[in-house]
């Protein structure tokens, strides 16, 4: 929890806990499924920014007081991890609660947002991971930071084992409903029993999830290089221009996400000569799954370009079509691989290959406090493997007039690659002059 020099800008930290108002009972256990366990080394960080006119009516006591009924619904997230006799992690729903951090920041909200110092966003959401003591590691941490102008930010630190980014954004949207004294119904939070083994024969190893050396009870993947975050906005008009460049007047365009990822894929390949990423992982929401039960439900598919494929020779159309059509859902394979070892093995997904995560449908701007939406929502990941991750977030609606909506792209790559990729992005029209 301690940072270096930037610490002095975020000050007056006070830690406490908030939990469910109702007793969950004795010996209530929730068992994450194989897919959840495969994501346990990753952490989602989402930061919601609110202007001062909204924040004025939000005292800390009021926020905390409304969190208790919210956690009545999400009592599973208030538990702590244990290991069964076989070593499989599970959650004991003991009402321990989420960590609540209050902080102050010495600048105004406008100054912060203008800074575009993507690395310092980690000051607004706790970087604490699960472990080394499972008993005392909260899966959820919430940080409320007060800015000098009266604006606030709410930083959610969410252990990915609990659920995918859609579950996390729904979690926060439900908090909004609680603040407005509305009822919560979905998702249905019934603790899951131990999944029974499916007993199918040995399968291929998944490509999207790779095993790591045992990390024990400290759930963070090992990194060989320092990972750095960089974000930029892609406006609606930039998107239109991009689609036009790739597809021309053709009506067969791939959706904006695939086109965008195709360009970024190409750029990454340019900065990794000799180690071009021929295989990528795509994470998208599952259209058939209605966010009914908390868990990891997003589709994880691999797109393999084949070994004789040459990235620099390929045009964007091919890449975009591959991303749109040739993805193979590997969720079952990942589930099998985890269950083979009874859930004890340590895998990681984000950064096992270059990963593209489609978060356009996370509804983060649906949250409303006092009738106002958040000014900006920033999403990032912690615990990303060396191959890197690209997150595509929506841009607040109403900011554009015609054509496709803008996007907000966050890239987490090794430090040296981030420096080199910026010119590539500029060449391809994704990055404008003032953005870095």
């Amino acid at each position, binding site marked *: 929890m301690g940072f270096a020099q930037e610490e002095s800008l975020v000050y007056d930290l*006070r830690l406490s*806990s908030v939990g469910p108002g109702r007793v969950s009972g004795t010996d209530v256990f929730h068992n994450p499924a194989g897919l959840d366990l495969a994501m346990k080394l990753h952490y989602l960080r989402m930061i919601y920014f609110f202007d001062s006119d909204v924040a004025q009516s939000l005292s800390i006591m009021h926020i*905390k*007081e409304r969190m208790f009924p919210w956690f009545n619904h999400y009592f599973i997230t208030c538990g702590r991890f244990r290991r069964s006799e076989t070593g499989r992690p599970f959650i004991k729903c*003991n009402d*321990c609660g989420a960590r609540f951090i209050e902080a102050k920041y010495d600048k105004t909200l406008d100054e912060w947002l203008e800074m575009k110092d993507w690395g310092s966003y980690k000051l607004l959401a706790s970087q604490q991971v699960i472990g080394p003591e499972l008993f*005392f590691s909260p899966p959820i941490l919430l940080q409320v930071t007060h800015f000098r102008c009266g604006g606030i930010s709410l930083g959610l630190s969410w252990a990915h084992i609990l659920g995918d980014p859609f579950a996390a954004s729904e979690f926060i949207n439900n908090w909004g409903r609680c603040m407005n004294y509305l009822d919560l119904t979905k998702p249905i939070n019934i603790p899951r029993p131990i999944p029974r083994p499916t007993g199918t024969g040995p399968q291929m190893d998944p490509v999207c999830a790779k095993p790591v050396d045992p990390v024990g009870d400290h759930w963070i993947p090992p990194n060989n290089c320092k990972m750095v975050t960089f974000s930029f906005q892609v406006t609606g008009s930039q998107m239109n221009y991009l689609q036009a460049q790739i597809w021309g007047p053709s009506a067969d365009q791939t959706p904006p996400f695939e086109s965008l990822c195709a360009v970024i894929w190409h750029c990454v390949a340019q900065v990794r000569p000799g180690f071009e990423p021929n295989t990528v992982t795509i994470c998208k929401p599952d259209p058939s799954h209605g966010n009914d039960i908390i868990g990891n439900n997003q589709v994880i598919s691999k797109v393999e370009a084949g070994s004789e494929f040459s990235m620099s020779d390929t045009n964007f159309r091919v890449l975009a079509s591959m991303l749109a059509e040739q993805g193979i859902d590997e969720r079952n394979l990942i589930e099998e691989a985890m269950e083979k070892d009874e859930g004890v093995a340590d895998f990681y997904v984000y950064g096992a290959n270059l990963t593209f995560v489609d978060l356009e449908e996370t509804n983060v701007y649906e949250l409303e406090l006092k009738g106002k939406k958040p000014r900006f929502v920033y999403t990032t990941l912690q615990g990303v493997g060396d191959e890197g991750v690209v997150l595509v977030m929506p841009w607040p609606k109403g900011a554009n007039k015609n054509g496709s909506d803008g996007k907000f792209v966050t890239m987490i790559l090794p430090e040296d690659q981030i420096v080199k990729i910026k010119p590539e992005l500029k060449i391809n029209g994704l990055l404008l002059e003032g953005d870095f």
Partner: protein
Amino acid sequence: MPPMLPDFSNSVKLKYVKLGYQYLVNHIITLTLVPIMLGVSIEILRLGPQEILNLWNSLHFNLVQILCSAFLIIFVATVYFMSKPRTIYLVDYACFKPPVTCRVPFATFMEHSRLILKNNPKSVEFQMRILERSGLGEETCLPPAIHYIPPKPTMEAARGEAELVIFSAMDSLFKKTGLKPKDIDILIVNCSLFSPTPSLSAMVINKYKLRSNIKSFNLSGMGCSAGLISIDLARDLLQVHPNSNAVVVSTEIITPNYYQGNERAMLLPNCLFRMGGAAILLSNRRSERRRAKYRLVHVVRTHKGADDKAYRCVFEEEDKEGKVGISLSKDLMAIAGEALKSNITTMGPLVLPASEQLLFLLTLIGRKIFNPKWKPYIPDFKQAFEHFCIHAGGRAVIDELQKNLQLSTEHVEASRMTLHRFGNTSSSSLWYELNYIESKGRMKKGDRVWQIAFGSGFKCNSAVWKCNKTIKTPIDGPWADCIDRYPVHIPEIVKL
């Protein structure tokens, strides 16, 4: 040798013998009066009305004699009624119900402990063991300042807690009784460990704009038995001031007293003490006779402070690092047992029925004169009281008293369940227990309640109340939303 009677029939025979003996001794006056009355009536009937009139006329009364006799009777009656102590009624009382945001589940307590005492895993282990065996539940509450890691016990936070607890309880009391703030004649506030200037009683007077000629008292430092000391003080004041209302506020403010060091003997109170408070309305007005819930019968106070060991067994001091905490000695249970014996020796003759007192006297004489090896007779207090409220100081205290007084599980249920739901709320725990009994619908008119409290010093105080009217459920109070879940089974050791 005749065969030994089997135990069962032996105990049944003994039971009937005991019942017969009790009935005989307790109703001896009735049993002797009835034959005498019968005899007199038969004699009168035998004499016939004419004979009675003749008897009457032969008595030769004159006016002076009649007047003197009449004055004598009136004089004696007046002296009797004037010197009788005023009846003290407990009109009603209200307990503070902590908000759910102050809830501290075991897991949260342990996690915070671990983060605060990160250099002392042994102390954390110790706290975990205490918590597992404490008899507390998952819904006990600590004040907001103590929820921080590390706790932030400022004076402002302590005042905030005091305001929250005391004002909530008082508002609730006003609502229940319809009492107007201007009608309070006597105000007594007891809070052992937080004593600011101006006092908490001044805080109450300021908030509710009480009268300027109010008689206010603030008792501090008197421990967990201060609640009954306040009741005793109120009783004495109400003897002197006719037609008055007295409000007693019993609470313990946790915020400034959370121990932040590592000494094990001092960490124990952190695990047990929780937020709570009660406000009680007492009155000596005859108009309250109808609606009052209880009548105060006896208050017995016993102080063992003359004994050095008893004086030091609950001691507030600084540890090696200069942090202040309350140290509990290992002889606490033994000293509590001694204090209880003292108290019931004084209490016994006041409340026990004649049968028990006679047995006790006979055994005492027997032990002194015939054979010192006779087992001392422990009077059966279950015959004197229907309900027991034992201060929920901790599981060990309740176990010890249950053993000493030979009480059944149901008798100590109120104490155990209060410890489970609210923790050790110090002087106000007796009122939560009383409220439990009422919420369960067990309080009937004429029932006698015995409240026992222990406190630093070492003191053992008792109060005896008699129920004035049957209390109908459901009642409004801290148990309203959870009484249906109780009683719960409290395991010996809770697995964390």
